[in-house]
């Protein structure tokens, strides 16, 4: 019954946010901004985007055999495969930030070594499925895509660099036994799993289809029938659930999704509140004057990108809270380049996790790793800024 109460509490809180009468406030800025931002998230992002995303993340953690992925990280694994899998498997393995560090430690000490381990450490938090969906939804698909691609490409580069820099130690180091991989047998075929996940993503994409600027053409047509398409995907999902899934699998799925919601929603809303208070909504001002932000991280200069990377690297972002914070910063005048730099350096690193990493690989390697991340994030920020025309 305890879980039921928690659920009721969360639903009530959400409903309250949804109908928050912010207009009644006698005062404006910045409390007004904070509450208005909370209401905007509750209305625009929770029901159609965040909740389906929780279900997708839950499905990934329950239905996909994680051992099947981990076998590519073993001590005798093909190195090329190890790097490739390390750079993209964050989508599947790192839905919860607390899973990244044991995996990192395991790959380093017993598996494929420092290179693939760092590649995974870097890309994992940035390309987990919740982060990509929410970044694309709130900050625009360009940033979402750039975040995913940037994380994948640079994770391989950083991994290889770490391997080359410490090649002597890597050669001298003896792996202490292989990994425990466990059961890798699948219940459903790859095609079945693929169709199932495609339907969930399909629902997410069409339910969030935004109204195009012109009223004619394909996009407008899709917009006008988006609810029928979304409903179609839901029917497909239900049919698949009945035919291919066992009953306890479905209940595991629901409980995994609920665990994510419980873990992430309170933090996200706290983050939204703080971001609204300090930075305001786009076009409005919070406690911190826009001028200061525009001066520090506006445009696309080297300094702006570097500053954003450094701040991102040391600051701790709870899962997904980097998004409202960044939204506030962009609204206050942050350039697109520095925004990407912060996204690439931010969730992958923070002071607390640097300390844990240091415990695993030692001070010297940690310093090199952190520097590489900051440099890479700065460079990719500048490139992205130039591509999106942020060069001023």
């Amino acid at each position, binding site marked *: 019954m305890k879980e039921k109460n928690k659920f009721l509490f969360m639903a009530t809180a959400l409903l309250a946010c949804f109908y928050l009468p912010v207009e009644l406030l006698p005062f404006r800025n910045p409390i007004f901004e904070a509450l208005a931002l909370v209401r905007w998230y509750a209305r625009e992002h929770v029901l159609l985007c965040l909740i389906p995303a929780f279900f997708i993340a839950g499905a990934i953690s329950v239905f996909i055999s*994680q051992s099947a992925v981990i076998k590519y990280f073993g001590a005798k694994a093909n190195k090329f495969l190890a790097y490739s899998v390390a750079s993209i498997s964050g989508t599947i393995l790192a839905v919860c930030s607390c899973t990244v560090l*044991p995996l990192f*430690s395991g790959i380093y000490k017993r598996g494929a070594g420092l290179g693939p381990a760092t590649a995974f450490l870097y890309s994992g938090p940035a390309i987990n499925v919740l982060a990509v969906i929410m970044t694309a939804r709130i900050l625009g698909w360009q940033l979402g895509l750039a975040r995913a691609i940037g994380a994948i490409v640079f994770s391989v580069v950083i991994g290889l660099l770490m391997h080359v820099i410490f090649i002597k130690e890597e050669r001298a180091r003896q792996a202490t036994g292989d990994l425990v991989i466990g059961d890798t047998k699948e219940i459903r075929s790859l095609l079945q799993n693929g169709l199932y996940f495609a339907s969930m993503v399909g629902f997410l994409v069409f339910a969030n289809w935004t109204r195009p600027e012109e009223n004619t053409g394909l996009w407008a047509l899709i917009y006008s029938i988006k609810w029928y398409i979304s409903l179609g995907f839901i029917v497909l999902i239900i049919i698949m659930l009945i035919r291919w899934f066992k009953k306890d699998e479905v209940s595991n799925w629901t409980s995994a999704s609920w665990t994510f919601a419980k873990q992430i929603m309170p933090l996200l809303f706290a983050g939204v509140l703080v971001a609204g208070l300090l930075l305001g909504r786009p076009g409005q001002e919070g406690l911190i004057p826009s001028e200061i932000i525009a001066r520090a991280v506006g445009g696309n200069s080297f300094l702006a990108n570097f500053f954003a990377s450094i701040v991102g690297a040391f600051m701790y972002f709870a899962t997904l809270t980097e998004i409202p914070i960044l939204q506030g910063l962009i609204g206050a005048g942050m350039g697109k380049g520095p925004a990407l730099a912060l996204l690439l350096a931010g969730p992958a690193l923070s002071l607390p996790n640097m300390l844990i990493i240091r415990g695993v690989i030692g001070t010297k390697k940690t310093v090199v790793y952190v520097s590489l991340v900051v440099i890479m994030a700065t460079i990719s920020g500048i490139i992205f800024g130039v591509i999106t025309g942020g060069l001023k």
Partner: protein
Amino acid sequence: MKIEILGIGCAKCKMLYENAQAAVKEVGLDVEVIKVEDMGKITDYGVMLTPALVIDGEVKTSGKIPSAEEIKKWLE
């Protein structure tokens, strides 16, 4: 007999710890349930997906939360 729960303290690890304690209580054996939160020790078991359940040094599951019923079977 000794049960170790490996995990760096996330919500899932706590759930597994509770399940293990419930299982021990039902079986009524004198079994110690310990949390292992040190990353080095977790890695020494070869475990990468937390939470993991270790009984007398043998890794039983990793990356999953077995129910109290399942844990009971390993205890008997």
